[in-house]
């Protein structure tokens, strides 16, 4: 009697392509996946619980470590929520510094995504090119804030350090360098027929699905829905700069790829304008008391991180420590569509689809 059985396979917590300690339990019928269940929590560190016992300034280093690939946006989401609750004025120079730093971070994060995605697909060189160029951004951040990955740079009311001499010129030079490099990335990969045949038509979902699952960022824009928090609910000084929001049409991996690369180009555009308009002098810290005590109340403030919409919900009862702090993490929400996308795919496409959703497990688990 010949009998086929369903195979239960563990794409284990340790795996080169799951971008961190993340587990997917798949039921295989031959080579085809019939059911996939993500299991997360291997990197849970209890940030939200710890935050109930820390003052707002002390929470900032913890936010760095949530989405470690784009730490500046994490810093900003917390600081922004507190500032909105306390209605603090931020000085002009601090706003500009924050904007420049966040856009540079967006480019760096997309570079990490690009390099590792192509490494999963099998090309080894783009990984090194992406990291070579990202090294320049990291060195800029090193000069600005003193650290390469976990910056602890923003404070409630402004930023901690002012830009050192010559830093803005370095940013300007980086922008022109990066424009050439972006063309090189396109020449190396985007036209490659092998690559295109691997990602076109894979992992498709409709705009209605995307909205139902609560996706955000490039995962939502690839289906044609034009939603970018920098344009729809402007924060910081984004409303002063001209930039486009790239939108895809089909909702497959190829569109997500192209949307992210276009976002890098638009970030470079914003950076150019910001560096032109950078104010000469000014304070980097607003009028804030030594002890930060937001009034009792609650607030949810969201911004556009490279992965999607990241939000911070604070319930304050008037003390210097929050009563409850919750982060709406984009990777956690974006991951919910994975079981639906994987049904009917082969194992090879699992890696392609998981990579294109762009998750960072530190953010999934918090």
């Amino acid at each position, binding site marked *: 009697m010949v009998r086929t059985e369903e195979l239960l396979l563990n794409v284990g917590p340790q795996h080169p392509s799951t971008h961190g300690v993340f587990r997917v339990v798949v039921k295989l019928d031959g080579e085809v996946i019939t059911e996939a269940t993500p299991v997360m929590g291997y990197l849970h560190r209890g940030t939200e619980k710890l935050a109930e016992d820390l003052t707002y300034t002390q929470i900032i280093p913890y936010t760095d470590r949530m989405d470690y690939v784009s730490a500046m946006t994490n810093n900003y989401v917390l600081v922004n929520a507190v500032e909105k609750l306390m209605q603090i004025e931020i000085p002009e120079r601090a706003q500009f510094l924050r904007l420049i730093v966040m856009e540079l971070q967006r480019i760096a994060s997309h570079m990490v995504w690009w390099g590792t995605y192509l490494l999963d697909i099998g090309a080894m*060189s783009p990984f090194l090119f992406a990291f070579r160029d990202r090294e320049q951004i990291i060195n800029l951040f090193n*000069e600005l804030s*003193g650290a390469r990955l*976990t910056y602890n740079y923003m404070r*409630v*009311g*402004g930023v901690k350090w002012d830009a050192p001499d010559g830093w803005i010129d370095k940013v300007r030079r980086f922008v022109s360098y990066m424009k050439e490099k972006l063309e090189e990335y396109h*020449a190396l*990969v985007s036209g490659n027929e092998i690559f295109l045949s691997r990602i076109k038509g894979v992992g498709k979902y409709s705009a209605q699905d995307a909205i139902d699952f609560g996706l955000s960022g490039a995962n939502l824009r690839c289906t044609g829905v034009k939603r970018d928090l920098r344009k729809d609910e402007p924060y910081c000084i984004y409303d002063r700069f001209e930039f486009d929001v790239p939108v895809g049409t089909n909702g497959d991996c190829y569109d997500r790829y192209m949307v992210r690369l276009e976002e890098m180009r638009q970030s470079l555009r914003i950076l150019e304008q910001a560096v032109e308009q950078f104010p000469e002098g000014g304070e980097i810290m607003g009028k804030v008391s030594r002890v930060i005590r937001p009034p009792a109340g609650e607030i949810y403030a969201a911004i556009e991180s490279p992965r999607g919409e990241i939000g911070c919900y604070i319930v304050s009862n008037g003390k210097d420590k929050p009563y409850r702090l919750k982060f709406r993490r984009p990777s956690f929400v974006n991951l919910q569509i994975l079981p639906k996308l994987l049904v009917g795919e082969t194992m090879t496409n699992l890696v392609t689809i998981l990579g294109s959703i762009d998750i960072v497990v530190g953010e999934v688990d918090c």
Partner: protein
Amino acid sequence: MKGLIKGLGVTFKNMTKKKVTYAYPDVPIEMPERFRGIQHLDPEKCIVCNQCARICPTECITLVGKPNPDPEKKVKVLDTFDINFEICILCDLCTEVCPTEAIVMTRNFELSTYSRDDLMKDMQWLYGNNTNVRKENNAATAKGGAK
């Protein structure tokens, strides 16, 4: 076909460009001025105000003060000061709040040891760690900013 050939062109041209390999550890890496490395402590300057221990997000600083040996002065003096480098995240908040700049960061970052016990550094060691000391330290507090 065209995409494949363009890709080949890009990798070929990269062969002639400059290599970005650092020759570390043969050549030490120069970190920029503001780099947050291992702390340096000057016990003379410390006034035992406990701000650093209170602001530390991971509670890795423990310090004990003792009454001043000089009967004229009222200010306490440091008896012991330990930083547990197993949990110190080099976040720089302690140097930000120190009113006398007794604790400052250096640009050293090599802290690997063979045993975890060696990672609890005491006052002696922190005082001795005095190369590459960072000059600018309290940016936010100097402007009267947040705690």
